[in-house]
């Protein structure tokens, strides 16, 4: 357990709790993507770089994008169109 591992684990726990507690679903998905990035760093520290590559591509990339489209389909992303309303 190096210092870096402990720091990454701490951030990982923070991200995991913040994903559950975030009020906005969009924010929750973004925190989840950050969680995946931290997880990929942790995989490198655990000496499995191939898993790290997959985690970075799937967890932080593709899964997040799929969540975004789902939120868009559910109209869960609130767009602030203040400029258009004022016109």
């Amino acid at each position, binding site marked *: 357990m190096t210092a870096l591992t402990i720091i990454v684990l701490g951030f990982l726990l923070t991200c995991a709790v913040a994903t559950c507690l975030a009020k906005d679903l969009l924010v929750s998905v973004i925190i989840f993507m950050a969680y995946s990035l931290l997880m990929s760093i942790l995989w490198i520290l655990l000496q499995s770089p191939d898993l790290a590559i997959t985690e970075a*591509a799937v967890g932080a990339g593709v899964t997040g994008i*799929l969540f975004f*489209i789902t939120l868009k389909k559910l109209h869960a992303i609130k767009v602030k169109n203040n400029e258009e309303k004022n016109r």
Partner: protein
Amino acid sequence: MKKRIAEVLRRRFYGDESPLDTDMVASLGEQPQSLTRSSNEALEALEGVREVRVQRAQEQEHEMYRQIHKWSYSSGVKIIQRLYRMLAVITCCGIIMFLLWTVNTLPPFGDPGNPDNNEVAARYVEQGPEETGAVNMVTGMILDYRAFDTFGETTVLFAAACSALFLLKLNDHKDGKPTQSWLEAEYADRFHEPKNDQILQFAARLLVPIILLFGFYVVVNGHITPGGGFSGGAIMGAGLILYLNAFGFKKTERFFTYRTFQWVTFSALITYAGLKSYSFYTGANHLESGVSTGTLGNILSAGFILPLNICVGLVVMCTMYVFYTLIRKGGV
């Protein structure tokens, strides 16, 4: 007899405290007799009185129901929500305790005396590079010793893509004309996606070639460096999705259509099955493939591992991309 039935029904549906009282229910049963006896006027007067009473009773009943609804929407919902939250917290804590307890009883990480360090792992580590020709032992394991498992995994990906197609794909044309649902989906997609975003397009123009090239590098160098078909395919799929997001369906349709997906996935799976069919037929044990393993560490080495990696990578890339397009628009 009728009175008794009415009484039983009343008790069954309203309980004992019904606003419809007994003689009212009884009078409902007496109707035919009163018809024969009384004159028309008396009947009408009786009907009027009865209607007023029934109306009043119905209002009372509505008031009762309203109060029940009010209770269930205010304090009832609160009680159920509190119960739900308590149960959720208790379940969560229980699962956390169970998992921590399981982790506590696991053998220490990386200990040479662990039960997974047996003769199988020793054989893979000692003779893997020699027998498979792959420097990356993970790829040597999953694509040579355990090629049958990887074939199953690739087929699972293909099956997942197929079921997503069954569920989400819209019919894009009928008798040569685009269908109504397809046109609506295209309009909704064009409406919601901001097109010609300069920043995104510039970033995509820079990044997409690098991402695709890196994905290809990871796939082709699967037997030398960390990575392989799955990770490289995921990277290439992510690159394609970025390109689609930046430039839209019109540009991607030039090189990736539904037909492309069909043929690439089909031929990749068939190639995989063909290359390994003899090994599978004889029990999926590790066999001499007949192709020399070549020099350790060269790109063109390790027998069938390089083409198998490319097959797996293509299937993963197509599956990722098709998942994205299906969820976004309902078609490639």
